[in-house]
């Protein structure tokens, strides 16, 4: 209002409402692991082991098909309007909704726990939840660390094959 001094914006803090989002599960999404997608990822990281390219060789080594390189947990099924156009991840219902003021984003870390080998032909069901929130003071101001955990199940067997935790840094 005219003549009224502006109130300084309160520094960002993690609220109880935000903490209440921890553990809230997203809707499931399908991730496909195909011979072509495994080869594409293997080429992308410069892998040379034929176990990622040659189906006969992989089977001779005792695998179901060519093996997904570490770090590759399939490709989310994509359709325009339902997935992020830059990163491909699904825009789906459920899961946390955090209203945060930060504009800048950094990749903070990746951790994967494997319970089985993932091979071409596997179809995975992934669900995600907010696992952790941390606020740290840094030279450039407050930084919010958001960790999400995704759980990947083999749709045919129902077994959990991997869990992956991704930390993003917002500042």
């Amino acid at each position, binding site marked *: 209002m005219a003549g009224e001094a502006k109130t300084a914006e309160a520094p960002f803090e993690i609220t109880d409402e935000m903490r209440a989002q921890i553990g809230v599960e997203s809707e499931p999404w399908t991730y496909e692991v195909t011979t072509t997608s495994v080869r594409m990822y293997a080429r*992308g*990281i410069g892998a040379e082991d034929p176990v990622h390219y040659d189906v006969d060789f992989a089977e001779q*080594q005792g695998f179901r098909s060519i093996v997904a390189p570490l770090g590759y947990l399939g*490709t989310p099924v994509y359709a325009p309007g339902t997935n992020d*156009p*830059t*990163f*491909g991840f699904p825009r789906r219902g459920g899961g946390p909704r955090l209203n945060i003021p930060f504009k800048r984003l950094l990749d903070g870390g*990746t951790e994967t726990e494997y319970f089985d080998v993932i091979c071409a032909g596997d179809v995975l069901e992934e669900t995600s939840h907010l696992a952790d929130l941390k606020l740290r003071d840094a030279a450039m101001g407050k930084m919010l660390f958001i960790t999400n955990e995704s759980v990947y199940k083999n749709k045919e067997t129902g077994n959990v094959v991997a869990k992956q935790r991704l930390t993003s840094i917002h500042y």
Partner: protein
Amino acid sequence: MTEQVYFEDVSEGQEIPAVQITPDKQQLVKFAAGSGDFNPLHFDEKFAQNMGLPETIVHGRFKYAVVGRMLTQWAGHKGRVQRFGVTYRGMDQPNKPITARGTVTAKKQEGGENVVELDVWTEDAEGKKTTPGTAVVALPGRG
């Protein structure tokens, strides 16, 4: 493919064979296609400069995957990586060597498996650790 390593051959403090790669822009475009991460920060100079960076940077997940390559090459087809994680502490630029390294920190038998724990990381051309982390690998025994 390197020769299969066995649990009995491993000792604490041992360095595992490093993997080095010098990713050019084409390599990073291949990674974008394989991973589905088409952030222009990794292939568009002007976009990177608008973000305040001198040039494009290597995907953190690319470096993570190179650590994964090192672990699988070492563990062989009979070994199994149970867990590996890294944090991204520094940026790497294309056309400069990135070296993944690892050192055995512990070995034990757990749940009927031969388990090896490692410190892992990538380092840049100056030897700075830009992607430190840890890993747990199950190895076959000779018995």
